[in-house]
């Protein structure tokens, strides 16, 4: 199991966002996380990457058998977790190429590999950029500064390709893209599919999933995964919207009793002595 999540809750300033999320992801799989606005999709992506804005509690949050909670964000990144940001950050004066090389070399050093020299790196970066329809000038510009929305998204995919992560989390990499750009981004993601890599695609819409076909689809509503299924589930959502599932989720929540142990938990000894769930 590459990623194992049990009863994950996350809150910010006391406001709960994720409430008991459960998910298993194996190497070689592509999972899609879908859900309406405000359901906690981006929070989930940020929590996996180690953003410390959130207060995180879980029974288990492990990546390749190691407890993620013990790892600061840069170690998670070096261990192979990559997050393509929904809103990539601008860093003025730092060239895209310089930043990419620093990132790649930080990851390589962690894996005991020698640094890539500037020339080797340059030619690799150029090739990958070309495959994403980005020209050389974009590599030389300041990181994300003055990039259009579409350029930023492509740049995230470029970074993913160069960093070769074990787990890639793509947070709305499709939003704001026209159809041609969407195809390019989707192709970029598809070339990353491999037996030793897992990909989590976070999206509102089904349209990206026409190009990047998922092995599993999960619906996140109210901070929990309330339904999982095969790729057909995405089609069903496209047709029916999220409303019917939201109602169902609300009904489940009202049945849920604070402090009560869930069935699965009671079957095994609890390792975490702290209350593992924030109740809303």
């Amino acid at each position, binding site marked *: 199991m590459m990623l194992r999540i049990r009863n994950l809750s996350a809150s910010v300033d006391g406001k709960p966002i994720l409430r008991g999320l459960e998910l298993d992801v194996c190497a070689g799989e592509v999972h899609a996380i879908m859900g309406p606005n405000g359901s906690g999709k981006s929070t989930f992506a940020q929590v996996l*990457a*180690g*953003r*410390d*804005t959130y207060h995180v509690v879980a029974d288990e949050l492990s990546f390749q058998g190691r407890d993620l909670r013990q790892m*600061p*964000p*840069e170690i*998670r*990144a*070096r261990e192979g977790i*990559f*997050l393509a*940001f929904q809103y*990539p*950050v601008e*860093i*003025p*004066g*730092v060239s895209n190429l310089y*930043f990419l090389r*620093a*990132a790649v070399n*930080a*990851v390589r050093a*962690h894996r005991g590999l020698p640094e890539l020299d500037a020339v080797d790196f340059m030619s690799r970066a150029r090739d990958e950029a070309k495959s994403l329809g980005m020209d050389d000038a974009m590599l030389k510009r*300041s*990181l994300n500064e003055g990039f259009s929305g579409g350029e930023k998204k492509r740049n995230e995919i470029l*970074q993913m390709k160069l*960093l070769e992560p074990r787990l890639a989390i793509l947070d709305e990499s499709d939003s704001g893209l026209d159809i041609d750009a969407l195809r390019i981004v989707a192709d970029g993601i598809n070339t990353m599919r491999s037996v030793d890599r897992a990909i989590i695609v976070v999206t509102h819409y089904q349209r990206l999933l026409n190009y990047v076909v998922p092995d599993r689809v999960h619906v996140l509503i109210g901070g929990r995964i309330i339904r999982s299924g095969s790729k057909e589930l995405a089609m069903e959502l496209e047709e029916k919207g999220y409303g019917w599932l939201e109602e169902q989720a609300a009904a489940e929540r009202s049945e849920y009793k604070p402090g009560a142990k869930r069935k699965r938990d009671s079957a095994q000894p609890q390792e975490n002595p702290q209350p593992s769930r924030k109740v809303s």
Partner: protein
Amino acid sequence: MVRDPKTIDMLTRDYPYGFVTEIEEDSVPAGLSEDIIRAISSKKNEPDWMLEWRLRAYRQWLTLKEPTWANVHYGPIDYQAIRYYSAPKQRGDGPKSLAEVDPELLRTYERLGIPLAERELLAGVAVDAVFDSVSVATTFRDKLEQLGIYFCSFSEAVQKYPDLVQKYLGSVVPYSDNFFATLNSAVFSDGSFAYIPKGVRCPLELSTYFRINASETGQFERTLIIADEGSYVSYLEGCTAPMRDRNQLHAAVVELVALDDAEIRYATVQNWYPGDNEGRGGIYNFVTKRGKCQGVNSKISWTQVETGSAITWKYPGCILMGDNSTGAFYSVAVTNNYQQADTGTKMIHIGKNTRSTIVSKGISAGHGQNSYRGMVKVLKSAENARNYSQCDSLLIGDKCGAHTFPYLEVKNSTARVEHEASISKIGDDQIFYCQQRGLSAEDAVSTIINGFCKQALQELPMEFAVEARKLLGVSLEGSVG
């Protein structure tokens, strides 16, 4: 905006240059009087004209009041408690070559990373090393002399090139200029002197390395660089001092003169002891630096990376007299912990078609206070003058401050003056983004800062740009985490 408290707590810094060299010093008693000035002058065996100049400055200084307009705060300085001259004791007449320099001094410079041994030819830098009040060694002199370039200590220039010194000393910063410059004119002990003859392009970077070692001592160096017609020189100064818990005064004067078609590039990497993280000790760096573009088509640029000192008060400026002359000021000023900086430039446009560029990057962290103060003055005679100023401030944490004080005085309607300013904060989101790509928090901050300073850093000579980047990293180490 960085909110994380652990982040802001980590505001400590190590100052690797804080050691003291155990060496016997020859000094004058503390205090300031005509007798002390006579004593300094006689120790240096100066001609009468030099002594007279010092005494005129001293008498002027007695009538001046310490300026209070700068946006810095410090307790009163007792000028009678300072020792105005301190020099490593010399055996006999002083060293004629590096082999005769006290090995303890050579070791000091080696620890500071300043190679005085000339075998370091590959470095391509000629160094004048000033230790407390005197110059202890100047490298590559023979090579430079073959080209007619004089590069030596100021004291030596007074003896060997009195005509040049008399002609240009005080021609850019007169002895009556301001409180600290006037004090310097009275008591200055040593510094560097460089003269580049007509049409010569100086093949080496000239460099002076200033080191304060003795306690309770002020350092008052004076540097004079003259670039004759059509010549070019690039010059760099570096500064460090031991860690002491009392403040020490450093009041230097630098004068640059560029004649027709000459160019001087002057770079400073200032890393005087900044005080500890509670604000105890550190150097008061009260410096007057000015260049005069005297000739047509002449160019002077100031590039400074200011990371040290408890208080910095300096405004390297250019007087653009010659038609078509160009002045530039590129500055990176960092204040961390309790450091205060009030720094900027003055560009005085007098000649026709004169141009000036100002790029100032201020970084404040901890409780640091950073002020940019810049004056652009276009006189009536300056037809078609152009100025572009850009002042950017970056804040790290929420206890520091950035301030901008631009002064514009334009008396010619053909002038074009542009001023841009910005203030930004290093965001948690920027740091997280870098971390998510595998960079540590410290590397993230140093990457963001280097990006912010890029326009100024790229003006430094290459070998020093690398140094300066490292220095920025060290200065801000732990300010974000």
